[in-house]
C-alpha cells in the first residue's frame, strides 16, 4: 500500500517539542520541503539531532534561525554563526559530539544497542561525565545510544512502499537515522513504481519508512 502522503499531513504528525533526527551534511541530504513545512506549521521547542546546522539560510540552519529549536545535538556548528550566537547567549542548548561518535550513537539507537565503546575523546573534554572502560589494554569511552521521536530523511529515489535509494554524499546520516526513530518520514526526489528499484540497490528497506513525500527541489 502506498505510503505517499501530502506534505502537510506528514508534518502535522510531528508534535511540538519532538526530538527530531534530520539527515544531511551541510544541507546536502537534508529534506528541503519537510523543513519548509515544519516552519510553515510553526512547530516549536524542537530537539534536533543532526551532523551540523549548515548555514543560517540553509537546511537545518533555517530552523535555528527561526528559533524553533530548543536543543541541538551535532558535531559541528562552525559554519552557522547564528547557532553559535544562540549557544553563547544561552538561548539554545548545544551538545557537541565527535562526528564518528554521533554516527555510532545513532546507529546504536537503531540497531538495538545500549551504546558503543570508542577511543575517540579519551582524555579530552568529551570524556567528562562518561564511563571509561579498559579492554585488552586499550581505553574507550562508553557512548550511549540516541533515539528520536521522528526522523526526517532525504532520499534520491523511493518506491511507493518506501524502499529508499540514496545518491553519493547525500546519503550520510540518512540510512542510520531511518533506523532510529519511532516515526520515519522520507522525502524523495523521485517516487517510482514498486519493482523499479532492484533489491540490491535498496539501502533503507520499506518496513522502516512510515510516510513518504515527493520532493520538487533538492537540498536544503
Amino acid at each position: 500500500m502506498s505510503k505517499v502522503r501530502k506534505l502537510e499531513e506528514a508534518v502535522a504528525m510531528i508534535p511540538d517539542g519532538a526530538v527530531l533526527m534530520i539527515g544531511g551534511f551541510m544541507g546536502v541530504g537534508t529534506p528541503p520541503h519537510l523543513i519548509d513545512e515544519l516552519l510553515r506549521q510553526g512547530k516549536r521547542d524542537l530537539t534536533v539531532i543532526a551532523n551540523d546546522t549548515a548555514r543560517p539560510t540553509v537546511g537545518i540552519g533555517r530552523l535555528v534561525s527561526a528559533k524553533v529549536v530548543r536543543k541541538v545535538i551535532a558535531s559541528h556548528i562552525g559554519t552557522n554563526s547564528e547557532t553559535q550566537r544562540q549557544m553563547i547567549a544561552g538561548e539554545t542548548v548545544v551538545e557537541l559530539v565527535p562526528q564518528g561518535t554521533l554516527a555510532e550513537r545513532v546507529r546504536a539507537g537503531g540497531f538495538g544497542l545500549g551504546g558503543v565503546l570508542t577511543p575517540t575523546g579519551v582524555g579530552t573534554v568529551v570524556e567528562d561525565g562518561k564511563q571509561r572502560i579498559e579492554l585488552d589494554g586499550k581505553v574507550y569511552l562508553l557512548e550511549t545510544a540516541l533515539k528520536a521521536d521522528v526522523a526526517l530523511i532525504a532520499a534520491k529515489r523511493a518506491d511507493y512502499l518506501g524502499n529508499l535509494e540514496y545518491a553519493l554524499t547525500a546519503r550520510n546520516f540518512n540510512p542510520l537515522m531511518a533506523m532510529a526513530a519511532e516515526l520515519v518520514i522520507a522525502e524523495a526526489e523521485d517516487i517510482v513504481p514498486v519493482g523499479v528499484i532492484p533489491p540490491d540497490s535498496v539501502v533503507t528497506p520499506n518496513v522502516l519508512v512510515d510516510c513518504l513525500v515527493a520532493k520538487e527541489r533538492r537540498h536544503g
Partner: protein
Amino acid sequence: MDEKTLIAKRVALELQAGNLVNLGIGLPTMVAAHLPAGVNVFFQSENGIVGMAPVPEAGAENEDLSDAGGSPIGAVPGAASFDSAMSFGLIRGGHLDVTVLGGLQVDEEGRLANWMVPGKMVPGMGGAMDLVSGAKRVIVAMQHSAKGTPKIVKRCELPLTSVRRVDLIVTELAVIEPTDKGLVLKEVAPGVSVADVQALTGAELIVPATVPTMPIA
C-alpha cells in the same frame, strides 16, 4: 613560494601511492594539488566518499556530491560512496593511512589542540577527534607561529583534540617529529637556521648532529 604552498608541498612528499588520505579543511586541502608525479592516492571526504577529486569542469557540479564543507567536488573512476558510520569506520578502524590536519597548538608530547578556543571560537570538533584517534598516521600542517606567538608549546593550553601523539609536524620553518623523548627537529626550510626554528618554538627541540634542508624546489 608562499609559506602555505611550502607546507603543502612538503606534506605531499609524505604520501605514498595507494594511500587512503583525509585532508582537513583550510591549509591541508592544498596538499592535493602538490602530489609528486606518479603518486596516486585516494582522498576520503568524511561526509561519505573515497575517491574525491576536483569538479572536472565548470558546470559539472552535482548537488549530491560535495565535500565536508558542502562545496561541490568530483569523483575519480573507482570512487565509492557510503554512509557516515562506514565513513568513520574507515577512519577509526585503522583503514585510513594518513590524515593531514591544521593545528592551533601542538605540545612537547605531540598532543594536538585544533578544535576550539574557549570563549572565542566553539565550532565543534566535527571529525577531528576521530581522525586523530584513528588514522594510522597523523600529520599536522600549520604555520609555525601565530603573529609571533609559538604554536608548538610545552603543554597545550587549549582543549585537546586527542591524547594520541601526532606523527609529524610540518610548518613553513621546519619538519618536527614528536617522539617519546620529545620533539625532534628533522628538517629546516630553505634559508632557515636551527636557531631560527628554536626561537619561534615554545618547547625545547631535540637537535640531531645534522639537520637536512627540506627537499623542496
